[in-house]
């Protein structure tokens, strides 16, 4: 998963007051099941019970630190003095959205780990025909054994996907990630392909909802095929053609 797929968008403040920010699927799944940082769950007993004379809460910093802002009342302390003992966070790769969330050292933030060698791909525009060809390869492989109705349904949705792409209705992240998906399909990495489809439908539901279920079904049916069927002469032939629609 690319770094650009780990993002945070602001919530919908028009429809919901104090709507929380929206995390991309990638960020969500990385956070779940990962090790948690030290939770914020400490409390402070009230001074009346511990014997200190008067409640000046938050006064645990040492007495040498002044309670009023330092020298220049108009500006915060500059870096050279009073630098707090916090490690400087690792600078994050560019994150979309309005909230700047710095990636900090502890493990749960996947941002650093997932910028792999495929990052060069994110700069180039994927080719629609390549993607469609691979999808049709999988569909052709399914035709002999999977019900005709199902295949036609899938084909219909793949066509819709292609049309939307060609008429510029799909955003770059969707196009790029679909390219990634078909690469995984080609390499028979079914789980990886499935995960990309899930990430896409969660993050971009309004762009993909009409046709993504066809891709989902295609992955499900293709993974169940006898592996021999993936490379019959007709199927391999379809990999070479650059034609789009492939109906029976």
């Amino acid at each position, binding site marked *: 998963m690319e770094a650009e797929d780990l993002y945070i968008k602001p919530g919908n403040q028009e429809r919901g007051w104090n709507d929380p920010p929206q995390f991309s699927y990638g960020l969500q799944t990385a*956070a779940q099941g990962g090790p948690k940082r030290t939770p914020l769950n400490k409390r*402070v007993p009230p001074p009346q019970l511990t014997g200190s004379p008067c409640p000046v*809460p*938050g006064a645990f910093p040492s007495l040498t630190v002044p309670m009023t802002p330092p020298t220049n009342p108009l500006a915060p302390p500059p870096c050279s003095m009073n630098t707090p003992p916090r490690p400087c966070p690792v600078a994050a790769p560019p994150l979309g959205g309005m909230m700047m*969330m710095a990636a900090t050292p502890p493990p749960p933030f996947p941002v650093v780990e997932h910028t792999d060698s495929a990052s060069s791909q994110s700069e180039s525009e994927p080719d629609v025909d390549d993607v469609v060809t691979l999808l049709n390869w999988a569909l052709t492989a399914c035709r002999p054994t999977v019900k005709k109705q199902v295949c036609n349904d899938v084909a219909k949705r793949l066509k819709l996907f292609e049309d939307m792409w060609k008429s510029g209705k799909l955003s770059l992240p969707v196009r790029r990630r679909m390219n990634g998906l078909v690469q995984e399909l080609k390499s028979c990495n079914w789980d990886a392909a499935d995960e990309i489809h899930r990430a896409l439908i969660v993050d971009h539901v309004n762009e993909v909802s009409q046709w993504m279920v066809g891709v989902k079904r295609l992955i499900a049916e293709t993974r169940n095929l006898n592996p021999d069927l993936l490379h019959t002469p007709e199927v391999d032939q379809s990999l070479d053609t650059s034609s789009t629609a492939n109906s029976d």
Partner: protein
Amino acid sequence: MATYQEFIQQNEDRDGVRFSWNLWPSSRLEATRLVVPVSCLFTPLKERPDLPPVQYEPVLCSRANCKAVLNPLCQVDYRAKIWACNFCFQRNPFPPSYAGISDVNQPAELMPQFSTIEYVVQRGPPTPLIFLYVVDTCLEEEDLQALKESLQMSLSLLPPNALVGLITFGRMVQVHELSCEGISKSYVFRGTKELSSKQIQEMLGLTNSAASGHQGRPMAPQDPAVTCRFLQPVHKVDMNLTDLLGELQRDPWPVPQGKRPLRSTGIALSIAVGLLEGTFPNTGARVMMFTGGPPTQGPGMVVGDELKTPIRSWHDITKDNARHLKKATKYYEALANRAAVNGHSIDIYACALDQTGLLEMKCLSNLTGGHIAMGDSFNTSLFKQTFQRVFSKDYNGEFCMAFGGTLEVKTSRELKVSGAIGPCVSLNAKGPCISENEVGVGGTTQWKICSLSPSTTLAMYFEVVNQHNAPIPQGGRGAVQFVTQYQHSNTQKRIRVTTVARNWADAQSQIQHIESSFDQEASAVVMARLGVFRAESEEGPDVLRWLDRQLIRLCQKFGQFNKDDPTSFKLSESLSLYPQFMFHLRRSPFLQVFNNSPDECSYYRHHFVRQDLTQSLIMIQPILYSYSFHGPPEPVLLDSGSILPDRILLMDTFFQLVIYHGETIAQWRKAGYQEQPEYENFKHLLIAPLDDAQEILQNRFPMPRYIDTEHGGSQARFLLSKVNPSQTHNNLYSWGQETGAPILTDDVSLQVFMDHLKKLAVSSAA
């Protein structure tokens, strides 16, 4: 004592249990004098990444009214291959498969580190999980579109072999037939006519064998998936269902000016429950109801369709002016009980600007363990992400939901079970461990929890029944065993067994040891749940008085003081946080209902009585952390004195996350210092609370609201109303000190509360 803290934490980590007392008073009389009952919080399916399940059946005690599970507390004679049940002392032979055991070759269930152990068992053919969507179509266009998209998305998140169904409702109720081919059909029901379960099944064609073989293909004999056209495997119907969802229209019945849409929620739910009853009784199933407004017609209606008649408020309820309340509540309670009997849970996802009737419908989720999510609109991040998290997965890639849970509790004979408070129903199982004093859901030692997550937590209350001056039982320890049977999300049937023990202590001679074993956090939560349980049936002020009385008694028992001298009063460390918890509990939305609508109150209470200890405490007394240049982030008193100009505060109330920038910080931020390189440390300071907030936002269910505010901001009220008003317009100038921000309120402050408490505790007149 530091060692008790570690002991408590280790036990929670391993067994998911936190007891109010970790040394138990050995007589009933002494137990009542301790004020807080011997009780615990128990998380049946606590996440245990390090606990692999074993693939065999648990070994049970052979005594008919015992049947406790073999556990590390049992005495074992390895040579004779016999074990003695630690609950009833019956001697049992080991089954033949255990012939090879010895003290150097122990089975896992006898090892102390496996006080909690999980068994995978075979109980009939695996049954699929079922998700039945019940969708309100009386929504605004934007909301309906957002909801449709979320539902389409969810088809990709469901477990792949799950069965899925769709019922839509508005003025009428439509049950959609999900077929793989051809024209989609649906069965339409009037939204006003109540039907029995049998009638519903007949009308849907489910009661005779004509229903099977409908598709014209041969039917597998034991395959329930084929027999029901309304609940089909998602991997078969996903494309059709996606289209069907995409084509859903708003309810076509026009809504005249000044009227509400006619919403037949009651009938829709009754059909859902009846459909599942008839086709998949005793299988894990989830009814997921999505609604954008209150039920306005048919049984279970909460308000009429005239907009000029508002939905009931607390004022209406106290004046006995809520026409539909009793009848609607009764209707939904009956539905909830039917669902619970079958192991089916009901979720409510309610998104609207006004109330939707959660007060009446809450039992549907509370009795079955289903979720309640409450939002302003389906087109919000709060709803979308909360809904996504229903399908979240754990470290193993498995879903965090479990179904059809039953919990059975066994105790050693000096202890009896008074009851449980949490998202469960009684199974009315009689047995020797039942106390006559019922607390919460009592009169039983077995409960049903139809839907569970790794954080679902029950509060269990016990009674010590040993007579005063009876000798301390042999072996000196009391034991409790929790046996939870459930259906895992991968459809396996599992049994998790947790067996715990604590030492008995004579309260006369060992009161200080008992005191140091007090878990003030667990005690605060079990007492709070008791308070909330009472508040549902008693008057509010009575509950507060009861809570106060318990607190005063506890302080009288354990405080160190000179009689009639309040200034001498001290509490030991193991109790020092407890009064503060009670102070905040009294002010919390769980007991102070008038600041919130009846629906909001139901929502807050729903989450309160099922969360684990850490989250429950956050709800009682929000966490407040202070960020500044003076040092690392630190917890600070939830007090107005913590609000300082050069601090950023992060407050977590569980339902809201508030980041508050002090006056000076806000000015610096506005001036843009964080953009300048020489003030990079200020940029880091601004980001630090956001980082911590992000972790909470990414993990919590349900998603909290997020408030970024500053001194003088209108949203600052969320912080100001929670902090104890130690300085009000009444006493500002008598303090003589100008730290902190004054709060304009007449609430009692923590100082005043503590002063009163100390006065009452030390008084010889009490």
